């Protein structure tokens, strides 16, 4: 599996559209910016737009679902800011080692929903001017398969195979930040949505 070396970032909405095309039968849990965009796509009963959220907890929520439902693929679409809030979850996930889990981090280097401030992993916040490498972190934490993409063309060509790698899988997508009114919103009453999601999960 090749890693894209293109320094360009891909647009977030298109990146998620590519993922959606290959995850129709999967559980997809999305949070923050990814949730905002995923909510605009054709919904599936196995989608869970994790809004409202406890920031950073999407991977943990996804881990629980993956452990309870080992026959389903569980894909978590997380932000890089969120990932930084819960780096320990990378270790928790690999300790539990759910083969059916895919963690996708949308790395844009900023806290999009609060106005685009750089995260502490971004190059502008680092003493050496280099961004932290989430893929390297995931590899060091024991993820079985680690991939990263910055080119939409590469992601489009390799997404289907990427998410089928031996799990747990970590994928870092370098995406463009979205500015403007970017707050994710719950597409309906939370308790009702979670009940429907639960019913879909439990069959």
């Amino acid at each position, binding site marked *: 599996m090749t890693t894209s070396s293109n320094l360009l970032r891909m647009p977030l909405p298109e990146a998620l559209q590519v993922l959606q095309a290959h995850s129709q039968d999967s559980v997809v849990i999305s949070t923050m910016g990814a949730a905002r965009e995923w909510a605009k796509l054709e919904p599936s009963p196995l989608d869970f737009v994790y809004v409202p959220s*406890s920031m950073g907890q999407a991977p*943990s929520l*996804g881990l629980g679902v*993956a*452990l309870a439902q080992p026959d389903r693929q569980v894909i978590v679409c997380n932000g890089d800011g969120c990932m930084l809030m*819960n780096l320990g*979850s990378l270790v*928790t996930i690999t300790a539990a080692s759910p083969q059916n889990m895919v963690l996708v981090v949308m790395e844009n280097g900023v806290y999009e929903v609060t106005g685009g401030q750089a995260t502490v992993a971004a190059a502008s916040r680092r003493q050496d001017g280099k961004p932290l490498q989430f893929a390297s972190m995931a590899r060091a934490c024991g993820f079985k398969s680690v991939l990263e993409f910055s080119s939409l063309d590469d992601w489009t060509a390799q997404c289907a195979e990427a998410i089928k790698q031996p799990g747990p899988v970590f994928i870092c997508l370098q995406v463009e930040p979205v500015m403007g009114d970017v707050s994710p919103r719950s597409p309906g009453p939370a308790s009702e949505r*979670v009940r429907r999601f639960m019913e879909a999960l439990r069959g």
Partner: protein
Amino acid sequence: MYSGEEMVGLLVDLGITHVVWIPDSTFGEWDDALSESRDLRLVQVCREGEAWAVAAGLYLGGARPLVVIQCTGLLESGDSLRNAVHDYGLPLFGIVGYRSYLNSETLPGDTCLRFTEPVLAAWDVPTVFVDEFEKKPLLGQHYRQCQQAGDAGIVLMAEGRA
């Protein structure tokens, strides 16, 4: 208060499938029994906020999780608890260890004794307090009552050492 074997027996009897935890010096004594149980899966997290979210996912997927953390972890994990229990209304259940309650001289000035109960009350989760052997049956009773009512619940368990 409970031996590891005793706790495993109780949890299996209650139908618990997963224990999501970080061990402390009291609950840690259950590690071997929990790890070796064929009827329970132990899911250890790095920080307690993960525990409520993992438990939420387990519950949604049809499992019956139990969160086991110390009161310090309760304080840490508040936002995660808030989201799972109050945003989504999930009937999650936890055992929270009350550090140094029974042996406060081991940790003089432990502010856990000052903040644990008020914070637990603020989180508005039905709670029972087990601080002596005679109250041990409350754990199972409270779990069953909460499950029947569809409520989240916590057992605050007094601990004897820091």
